[in-house]
């Protein structure tokens, strides 16, 4: 299959890159100085695109690649892919569900613990030598806190299962109530936020969920509430979040994603009630390898005319 052209949208994983290079004709989009002239010269060779949370296949790219048959995503989120366009043109789309569910859920809980127990701040306290002068301040217990989940899909359920082991009562918001599930349902995010102590975003990013966490939700969550985002940056109205933290209208935040990655609002760096991570939700050696294997598996299946492993479209 080494004559089949695969366009890798951005650097995402060296193991994946190596494998794609070995099995296909790999084009590294980020190394190209003039993207439109590159696309013009190579449009007939590119049959597949490998995208991720940073860069995928928007309408413009899809239109520029007439031979495009499949977009294999190195991510479970599909917000960087124009799904409607793909459907229209009969282009297949695959993602990486399930293999990363646990890691993302683990990190969500890790962020909750780090924010409430001020883990990163107290580590800084020790490294700066301040412990010799006095004890660190009291923090907040995590066990038993009410956890509210926006989106009770695979990742949301995995977060719930873990939080339950800490005796956290679980509540949720989703488009439709799930009667088979024993958690408390709220028909709006504002009501969920008013009720819970920790609000976590775990739904896909779509037009409907863009800025689903806005000023009203943040105010409802309140000065003792904590927001955790392991979804996508645009789920949260970032400037509202920043001002709420500064004005003490929100108790704290643990964020793995931002509206304009890799840029993180620097005003947050001085706060002791936030934890900010560089989009590492699925960032483990084990999971990235499993995700890469899925991308390769999907591409090979497609070009061998076998059933796709994890099709979306």
């Amino acid at each position: 299959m080494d004559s089949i052209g695969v366009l890798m949208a951005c650097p995402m994983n060296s193991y994946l890159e190596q494998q794609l290079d070995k099995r296909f004709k790999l084009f590294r989009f980020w190394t190209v100085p003039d993207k439109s002239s590159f696309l013009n010269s190579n449009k007939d060779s590119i049959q597949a695109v490998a995208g991720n949370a940073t860069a995928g296949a928007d309408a413009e790219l899809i239109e520029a690649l007439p031979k495009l048959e499949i977009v294999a995503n190195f991510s479970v989120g599909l917000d960087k892919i124009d799904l409607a366009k793909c459907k229209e043109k009969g282009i297949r789309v695959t993602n990486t569900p399930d293999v990363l569910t646990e890691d993302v859920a683990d990190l969500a809980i890790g962020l909750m613990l780090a924010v409430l127990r001020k883990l990163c701040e107290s580590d800084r306290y020790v490294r700066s030598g301040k412990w010799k002068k006095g004890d660190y301040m009291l923090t907040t217990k995590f066990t038993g806190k009410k956890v509210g989940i926006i989106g009770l899909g695979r990742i949301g359920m995995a977060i719930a299962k873990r939080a339950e082991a800490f005796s956290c009562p679980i509540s949720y918001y989703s488009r439709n109530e799930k009667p088979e599930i024993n958690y408390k349902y709220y028909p709006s995010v504002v009501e969920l936020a008013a009720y819970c102590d920790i609000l976590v975003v775990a739904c896909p990013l779509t037009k409907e969920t863009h800025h689903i966490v806005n000023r009203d939700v943040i105010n409802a969550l309140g000065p003792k509430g904590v927001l955790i985002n392991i979804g996508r940056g645009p789920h949260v109205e970032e400037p509202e979040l920043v001002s709420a933290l500064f004005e003490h209208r929100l108790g704290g935040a643990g964020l793995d994603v931002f509206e304009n990655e890799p840029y993180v609002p620097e005003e947050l760096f001085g706060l002791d009630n936030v934890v900010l991570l560089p989009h590492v939700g699925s960032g483990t050696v084990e999971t990235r390898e499993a995700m890469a294997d899925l991308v390769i598996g999907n591409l090979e299946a497609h070009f061998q005319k076998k059933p796709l492993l994890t099709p979306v479209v």
Partner: protein
Amino acid sequence: MATVEEEEPPLVLVHRPPNFNFPFKHRLQTRFCLLDPLDSDPPESTHSFFSRHSASIRVLLCVDPTPITRDLLSLLPFLQLIVGYSAGVDHIDLDECRRRNITVTNAGKAFSPDVADLAVALLIDVLRRVSAGFRYVRAGLWARNGEFPLGFKLGGKRVGIVGLGSVGSEIAKRLESFGCVISYNSRRKKPSVPFPWYENVYDLAVNSDALVGCCALTEETRHMISKDVMTALGKEGVIINVGRGALIDEKELVRLLVGGELRGAGLDVFENEPDVPQELFSLDNVVLSPHCAVATPECFDALEQLITANLEAFFSNKPLQSVVEF
């Protein structure tokens, strides 16, 4: 025992560190008469104060880590109960208490969820590089250098719990939900526990990816996480300690971490607090916590309830909670 003639609140002797007034002292003072040498006016030494009141003292409230030595105990011939303020009782001369038939109670299960939470927080932080990732973002390196180095998955990791008491059990319950595989070492196998038991910490380490120290510090457990144990754990091993610093041979731990012989460590306790080996400060795979596993207001509320209940129980001749077995 409270008698009909006693209208005064019962006497409780307090032994606490200087400059530390435990948060609920004023509430205890509404129910008991607290005798505190550090409050005496004119100032009086602990020895002298204890001696002066010795005839009427049957219970001592010990705010850790103030040591209770054999000498101090000899000043209190009628002492029957020491109410501890922490889970650990390694600062109390238990041999002498055994000899004198003095009961000791500790914080029991009041602290366990908070300590377990911190142990899990430390493990996630080390494996998933949470504090390191935050440092990376704060230093502006995400924009400059791109992707942060990958961490390691929790699911499927074999976690060996050293001491499956109240804290260890709470840790096990939490980590199971992350898909960790639990096994343990303790003095005796616990038949009702489904996890594999190892007779010694070395065997536990051989079969684990991470060790969590959460047992009491005694003569037997001092330095039980030794050089051999840590070597058996291996280069991909993680050490978490929320027990007492001296459970681990700290010098060896530092040497192994600096030499890259362990994947990482998350430590809330150290051999010589608040001194922390400086070599650890430049390591990215270590998370350091200033002995604050129980430092939440909720913990102190639970402790207050327990201590108040135990003091009332003692003075009404009722059964005590969280009696330490030694």
